[in-house]
């Protein structure tokens, strides 16, 4: 079985972002970028499936500017076999990404597609579900455990009240939650080997996808700042402040 993994290049999760002064977006020049943390978990899960003999080949896909090659190389160094870069300098929204992934799914015929549950930049949490809809496949979102057996997948999902297990027919779309696994670090020899693995480059137009954004961002602004309050000396003073000043207890 072939596994397709979608990975996104985003601002590193540790970076404190800055909103541009003209309110057109967030400053990305000279900012540390890395693979979306949920996507690292997706790659790791695919590699574990291959190591367990359940997957034959792993294809890592990323979409965006040429620099997304680095993100694909990271996936290759973790154990993916080859990469596909859908290259464009235009903004890509989840629906456009899902449409491009649909074309790739039709071409590559994967048995399973694994994506992160959300990207930590747009926080949309949409792409996997949209791809499942477009393919007419089952979806198992927010997965914290995946068990493959005879053409089906048993997936444990993180839901608001706790956990839920569902059975989905393969091929299916799975999106990863944080607790699915602990991604490995790529070793230096594997990073060197990854340089020799093939990456195919296509454009949204090659795939016949209209990638025009459906949502227009009118402005991006900073949220209201919270001011630091006061430090209290002890528990008694804290209780007094909460009772008499803030009046919340």
């Amino acid at each position, binding site marked *: 079985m072939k596994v397709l993994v979608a990975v996104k290049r985003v601002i590193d999760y540790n970076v*404190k972002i800055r909103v541009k002064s003209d309110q057109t977006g967030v400053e990305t020049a000279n900012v540390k970028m890395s693979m979306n943390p949920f996507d690292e978990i997706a790659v790791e899960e695919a590699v574990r499936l291959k190591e367990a003999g359940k997957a034959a080949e792993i294809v890592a896909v990323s979409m965006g500017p040429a620099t997304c090659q680095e993100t694909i190389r990271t996936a290759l160094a973790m154990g993916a076999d080859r990469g596909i870069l859908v290259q464009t300098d235009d903004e890509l929204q989840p*629906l456009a990404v899902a449409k491009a992934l649909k074309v790739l799914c039709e071409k590559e015929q994967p048995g399973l597609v694994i994506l992160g549950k959300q990207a930590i930049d747009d926080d949309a949490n949409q792409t996997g*579900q949209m791809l499942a809809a477009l393919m007419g496949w089952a979806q198992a979102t927010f997965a914290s455990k995946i068990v493959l057996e005879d053409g089906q997948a048993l997936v444990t999902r993180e839901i*608001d009240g706790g956990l*839920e297990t569902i059975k989905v027919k393969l091929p299916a779309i799975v999106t990863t939650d944080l*607790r699915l696994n602990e991604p490995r670090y790529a070793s230096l020899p594997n990073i060197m080997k990854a340089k020799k693995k093939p990456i195919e480059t296509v454009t949204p137009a090659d795939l016949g996808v209209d990638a025009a954004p459906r*949502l227009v961002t009118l402005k991006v602004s*900073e949220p209201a700042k919270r001011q630091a309050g006061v430090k209290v000396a*002890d528990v008694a003073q804290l209780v007094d402040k909460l009772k008499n000043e803030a009046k919340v207890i």
Partner: protein
Amino acid sequence: MALLVIAEHDNAVLKPATLNTITAAQKIGGDIHVLVAGSNCKPVAEAAAQVAGVAKVLLADDAALAHPLAEALAPLLVGLARNYSHVLASATTTGKNVLPRLAALLDVAQISDICAVESADTFVRPIYAGNALATVQSKDAIKVITVRGTGFDAALASGGSAAIEAVSAAAATDLSSFVSAEITKSERPELTAARIIVSGGRGMASQENFKMLEELADKLGAAVGASRAAVDAGFAPNDLQVGQTGKIVAPELYVAVGISGAIQHLAGMKDSKVIVAINKDEEAPIFQVADYGLVADLFQAVPELSKAL
């Protein structure tokens, strides 16, 4: 113009998040219809009909809808959505699971987690873990939206008298099926609806120590939350996680105990009215947002606080 709100429920009780979503729909304006899709869920439809501002309740009662599986719900929603200008659901795990699937079937964008309504086609939503707010305008004919509950007040649960109309469910699919669920049982209020939340982080050091927080929570009538570090370390179950990837809360009082205040955690709680931080590291970032900070060893301060209440 009419709007469709998808009710969140467990086949017996209408979840409070639905009431916040109804308020968001009211801000957009138009007749509000509520869809209750489930199995043996008539009581939920009756509760939804009582909610102030609801014009009509649609009831899809079918065994195939007993669990809110996206594959079963989406065909039903696609059939209904074309009669509406907006389809809204709460940004809960159910709403987030189903609405993007609906949007793709309608070939429209989905707008996630809105926290304010500017007009019928323009909305504000947080991005980058709540560190920026994007104002977005939709060009699509049908707006498919998930609503951040803490951004809107709850609609009144009584005072309405909407008619209930039965709608037929779509044909069952064999794509997916429900196997089992492990729901965390708790006597305390639900995290996203609680007036007070006591939350613990890595500083709690063990699962046993979380009992200290539970005692404090019981004194305050509060819900218990946790940071990702505490969940990953096994101190607390994952559904208690507050943050970008967990639940978004905005209680009147949020007490952060042994939590450093990483941006991913702040994204989940920085809209709380009053924030209290108890941490022994006076440099911890949580103190930059806390209204009241206590630099102290939590193992002394928390029991002392419980006793003082």
